[in-house]
């Protein structure tokens, strides 16, 4: 029998208000409503969350770690973006 597979969903959980949703893992489900239910049962059995996001795994576009150097090079070369690049005389005090 050729069984069709259930799609994969990524699960993000907000542990408490004030915190961002954070990736917790993934679940299989036929639709969004089932993905939410499964995520609740699998990832929040002990009050780990107040809010859940589920996203079809296929909908996520990720940067390629192999291209990491090129992708993030500008952050390394632009040291003038950091406050410590600028000199403020000591007499001026905290700024």
């Amino acid at each position, binding site marked *: *029998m050729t*069984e*069709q*597979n*259930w799609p*994969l969903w990524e699960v993000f959980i907000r542990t408490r208000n004030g915190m961002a949703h954070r990736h917790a*893992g*993934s*679940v*299989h489900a*036929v*639709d969004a409503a*089932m993905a939410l239910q499964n995520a609740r*049962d*699998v990832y929040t*059995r*002990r009050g780990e969350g107040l809010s859940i996001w589920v996203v079809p795994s296929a909908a996520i576009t*990720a940067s*390629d*770690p*192999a291209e990491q150097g090129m992708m993030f090079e500008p952050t390394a070369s632009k040291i003038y973006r950091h406050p410590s690049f600028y000199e403020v005389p000591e007499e001026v005090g905290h700024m």
Partner: protein
Amino acid sequence: MYTQALNTREAAGAAADPEREARFQACVDAESRIEPNDWMPDAYRRTLIRQISQHAHSEIVGMLPEGNWITRAPSLKRKVALLAKVQDEGGHGLYLYAAAETLGISREELVEQLLAGKAKYASIFNYPTLTWADIGAIGWLVDGAAIMNQIPLCRCSYGPYARAMIRICKEESFHQRQGYEIMLTLARGTPEQKAMAQDALDRWWWPVLMMFGPSDQDSQHTDVSMRWKIKRFTNDELRQKFIDATVPQAHYLGLSIPDPRLAFDAASGHWRFGEIDWDEFKRVIAGNGPCNRERMRARRKAHDEGAWVREAALAYAQKRRQRQAAMQVAAE
């Protein structure tokens, strides 16, 4: 441990890509983590898929011996605790399947490997649960041994596996404590109840020691797994840690460990123990333990009988999507 059957050595082979492999090893040596899309040696990927999936299968098959006692738990308190524990094991299996899937294998392939008998699971779950005391012994000893093994796995070099293990370890402590409390209640009960607790300890002790896998002289995976920081301690080191922690707990219960050679060695601070029956270990791993066939039969039956549910859920979701699309067209 839950991956004790890792007995086929990966062909070391020549490094296919020495430059990337060196960078990979440097990352591992620096205690950084390897993440799903990072480059990794094929053998590392294969070893992890095998280890994580065996671990996941063990959690799933591990639900069976305990599930056997849910309807016969002696009180409502024990019943809800056991139900929650068995549900946790299912959850642990799912965290681990999800971690394995990040390595590029599908859930269906993993399940298929288990049902076809190609993938192993922990030998311990091939032993029967004959009395209620066995539920106490499993929580105390089997989960205790699992914790010993799993805490170092929280620092495993593969990120998704390490993160799954952190979640699991947080939950295991409840499992071990509820088991010990069952043993304590029996040990403080009638002479018959205490005898039941002793009988469970007698039957589970040696199989639990086997959970840590073959002794270091015979373990083929240790060296490379250590270099990759998948493993942090050898089988024998973990076994010794477990014995040292557990013997005093048994003494507190007033129970005796079924090993006439067990003795405290004051010089080293360790409990010395007798020879493990490695023939029994090999027999159970090879599929000839007391319950291997029954466990696999139960898993296959559950899978087959769930097929129509999986298909119906998909068909229903598809129908709803089509209906929504049609309504949208009509509205436009």
